[in-house]
């Protein structure tokens, strides 16, 4: 048999394809990210205060991660209103990122722009209520509006800066944020119930995909105290280490057939994808699998429903990974609601002005798609000498590769055509 190329996968932040080399009953499957990214070229030589705006290009949460690194570099403590604005912005990012993915899921069997194109190999599916999709897109728009108020723009925010934020909010902003938060919270609770009843529990729709299992792997996530929690695949604590050591603990393995390196634990070493001992994953499922009680009551109620339905974490199914996003939608809306008021977002000062400059800095953030870590070195003028970014795309590269291999192998054994396999893999890796 000839090499099979399955491309492009839908909805991937990093454009990706799969190459399958048939090898009797053991096909070699390569999950390939085909877009190079030149972070060093974008960052080195720039004044360090420019990085929050530059790195926002690789994901909105990098804007916040970079700002936290600047706070440390300049040894400044942002005022409370700035801390609250940043936290609300991060949660708005969680809401919009997760909701966009769930929108993709709900439109997966059809062309969301009309009936022009039917997706091959998927078969007939019951049509979802248009009202549900309208609600989804409406609340996606609302969460983006909240991001715009808090961050200046929703996809490439720019208002967080060393020591705080770059502008005061106005009274109309407080009122609008409160309206948005209230609406998003009501929606997220109802939406989670709809997903639960129609997808997760009854599996009335999307049944052929919701049975997908995810490779059981160790995970990394931040604790509420800010340390990194390393759990094994069974959910047992392996280690806990300070977040500033992330880049010391995590190595990146480059392969010449993909532009995205694989993250692995240095202590165990890179042993290839066939020996997953040193591999791990990050993101909503990793966070929910840590079995940490949510501080937000409605999110905790939803988490308990998930545990009741799927059993105690960790769980490794597509349903669990989607449910984790539904829980975090509620949690994000509750958090924004708690901060969307004048008391939290107003004050006499928006930032502390830096006076000193260290030579290196770091930060770690639980971003919508998983753990992010930044580390920079600068010269005595604050010009960037080195930049070291750990991104959820790297953290989940191994999981996506292993999952793609599993789904392709299963598909081939069922003698499915490449178009069907492409749809299955696109849905399978969507939550990561």
């Amino acid at each position: 048999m000839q090499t099979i190329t399955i491309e492009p996968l839908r909805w991937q932040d990093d454009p990706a394809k799969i190459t399958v080399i048939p090898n009797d009953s053991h096909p070699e499957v390569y999950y390939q990210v085909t877009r190079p990214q030149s972070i060093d070229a974008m960052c080195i030589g720039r004044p360090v205060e420019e990085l929050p705006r530059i790195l926002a290009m690789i994901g909105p949460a990098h804007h916040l991660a970079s700002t936290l690194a600047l706070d440390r570099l300049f040894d400044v403590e942002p005022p409370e209103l700035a801390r609250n604005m940043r936290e609300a912005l991060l949660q708005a990012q969680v809401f919009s990122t997760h909701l966009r993915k769930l929108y993709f899921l709900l439109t997966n069997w059809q062309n969301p722009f009309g009936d022009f194109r039917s997706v091959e190999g998927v078969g007939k599916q019951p049509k979802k209520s248009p009202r549900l999709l309208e609600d989804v897109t409406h609340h996606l728009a609302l969460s983006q509006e909240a991001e715009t108020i808090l961050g200046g723009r929703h996809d490439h925010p720019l208002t967080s800066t060393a020591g705080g934020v770059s502008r005061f909010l106005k009274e109309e902003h407080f009122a609008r944020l409160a309206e948005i938060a209230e609406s998003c919270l009501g929606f997220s609770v109802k939406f989670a119930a709809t997903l639960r009843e129609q997808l997760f529990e009854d599996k009335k729709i999307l049944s052929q995909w919701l049975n997908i299992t995810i490779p059981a792997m160790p995970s990394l996530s931040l604790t509420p105290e800010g340390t990194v929690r390393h759990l094994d695949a069974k959910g047992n604590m392996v280690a806990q280490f300070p977040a500033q050591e992330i880049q010391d603990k995590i190595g990146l393995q480059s392969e010449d057939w993909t532009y995205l390196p694989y993250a692995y634990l240095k202590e165990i070493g890179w042993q290839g994808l066939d020996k997953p001992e040193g591999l791990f994953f990050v993101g909503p499922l990793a966070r929910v699998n840590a079995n940490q009680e949510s501080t937000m009551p409605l999110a905790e109620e939803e988490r308990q429903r998930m545990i009741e339905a799927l059993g105690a974490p960790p769980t490794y199914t597509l349903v669990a990974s989607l449910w984790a996003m539904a829980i975090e939608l509620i949690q994000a809306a509750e958090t924004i609601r708690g901060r969307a008021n004048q008391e939290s977002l107003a004050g006499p000062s928006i930032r502390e002005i830096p006076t000193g400059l260290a030579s290196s800095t770091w930060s770690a953030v639980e971003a919508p798609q998983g753990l992010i870590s930044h580390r920079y070195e600068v010269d005595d003028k604050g010009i960037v000498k080195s930049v070291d970014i750990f991104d959820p795309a790297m953290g989940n590269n191994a999981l996506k590769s292993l999952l793609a291999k599993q789904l392709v192998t299963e598909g081939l054994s069922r003698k499915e055509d490449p178009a069907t396999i492409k749809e299955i893999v696109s849905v399978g890796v969507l939550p990561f």
Partner: protein
Amino acid sequence: MNASPKKTIAVYAANGCRSCEHAILDINNQVQPLSRWADIVYWPYMLGSGEQELGSLDTIDVCFFTGAIRTDEDRRMAEKLREKSSLMVACGACSAFGGMPGLSNLKDLLAPPAEDATPAETDETQDDGPVLPAMQSRVSALSQIVAVDYVIPGCQPTQSLLWSCMQALVCGPKSGSKISFTTSRLPAEAAQAIAAGILPPKGFCFAGEKAVCASCSRVKEEKLFEATIRPYEKYEVTGRCLLEQGLVCLGIATREGCGGLCTGLGQPCRGCFGKSEAVYDPGAKMVSAISSTFASEDEDEIEEMAETLEDLSGTFYRYTAPSQCAIASKE
């Protein structure tokens, strides 16, 4: 209402992020369903469209091409989509000017790569191994590879300008929605022509003609500054012009259309709309602007001030190095 056949649209992303594609998706979800006006016949990100589907299309009416040209694959797809598309739109700063991926060109210009530092190599002739598109030696804007009919600038493009482009090229004069709000930042002649259903001239940029300063809300007092300020230092976040306070703000060299979005938020402009119509090279314009705003005629003071300015090329050409830097854009 819309008796004429629907237009066909393609959307493609080369090297960049997904923001421009999300902006197009937002038009569909937040402004008007695109299916009223068009059939989206090719969109790898949203529809998983492959090359086979592209090959089966005879023509495409409008192609929205996002992202810079970084790999052989980006270049090949640009050529293929150009061949099939009646109108090719460079959508977003990366496609229009090279964007932030284009900073790689400056790096190579300022510090030539070591002899052994070659782009990622893959064996394109290999039949049965995984193949990866090879990187080109430099990042290019779309217009440096194929002819571009229209440009939508911005990182990401604003919703109003993107929608005005879609109304002009896709919906036409029968669009049910009025175009006035979308064209508020377009030159008056262009807005009137679009409203009348006349296509703007080829090469038209869906933005203003003047500089960002023309629509920036900050107060210009024609005052001179005595020392440069970096954005982490203390300055007035509202009110006064940032350049007149001593910050390097590219508003004076940058095409308007955003409404002074960044400056209104207390952050200096970084030029994601590219140079304004009257400017030849944004870096040269900025050198002139800073020189004429600095309050000294003493040679030593001027030299001292000049030394406080950091990374001018990376700032002046943040989004435009491949196509608008007179030195770096030469092959």
